[in-house]
């Protein structure tokens, strides 16, 4: 299915946010993920089902000032 990650179209077989995070080799810590403009807490990544056309934003944690 096709979804968008940070505005780029991505073809994926991942069924959940957790599976997609693994597929994209994102670090286990230090990133937040929003689906359709809403942050999904890490605890829900496993159960959050991905559907065709969803738009994800991956946000890297930052701590500089």
């Amino acid at each position: 299915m096709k979804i968008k990650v940070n505005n780029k179209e991505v073809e994926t077989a991942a069924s959940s946010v957790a599976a997609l995070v693994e597929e994209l080799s994102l670090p286990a810590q230090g990133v937040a993920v929003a689906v359709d403009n809403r942050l999904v807490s890490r605890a829900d990544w496993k159960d959050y089902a991905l559907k065709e056309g969803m738009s994800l934003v991956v946000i890297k944690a930052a701590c500089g000032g």
Partner: protein
Amino acid sequence: MEHREGRYDRQTMLPEIGAEGQERLRCARVLIVGAGGLGSPVSLYLAGAGVGHIGLVDDDCVGRSNLHRQVLYAEDEVGRPKALMAARRLRALNHEVEVEPYVCRLSADNVRGLVERYDIVVDACDNYATRYLLSDACVALGRPYVYGAIEGFCGQVAVFCRTAGSRTYRDLYPEEEAAARQALASKGVVGMTPAVVGGVQAHEVLKLVCGYGDVLDGRLWTIDLRTMQSYVVEI
């Protein structure tokens, strides 16, 4: 008689601010934690706007490698305490503003005492631990917390703790222990990253004080200056 321009004319002519907003700004008390990359634009723009009372917390001294982005400081201030040099600069910019420098590090022992003296807290610090301290104190004392953080070419801003039940920093990054172990990936940064992000933080303060626009209440704004991709997500 010659018309004498008022120093705030260009902002008070905006209906969102007006004379009433300006008076609110004059009465406002804003604590800025960190007088570095973010603290520079935040404090300069708030002092310029006429925020009446500004507290500035920083225990560090000006370093040569600060000068490319920390626009509060000049070459002859290298080695001197940032909070004191910043206070001097802000008073020179606007003598109507009362600036209180705190040459100390924010800690569990002093955070409540500092936060409770102010109406709004701006996070311009450079580490996760201080952000958890600030967020918890703002929840406990009911102070809006204007969060900002940068890394490289990227930055993010949100407003937490505006009302009881508002989102907090812990909702954005729930894993305090993991964050504490995670160091800054890289110290590399262009001066424009804190300029943009600090400018947005300062403007969120104006919106909160004057009561206009849609505050980033429980929403995270992100920017990548390399691609100019920007998002606003609900936390």
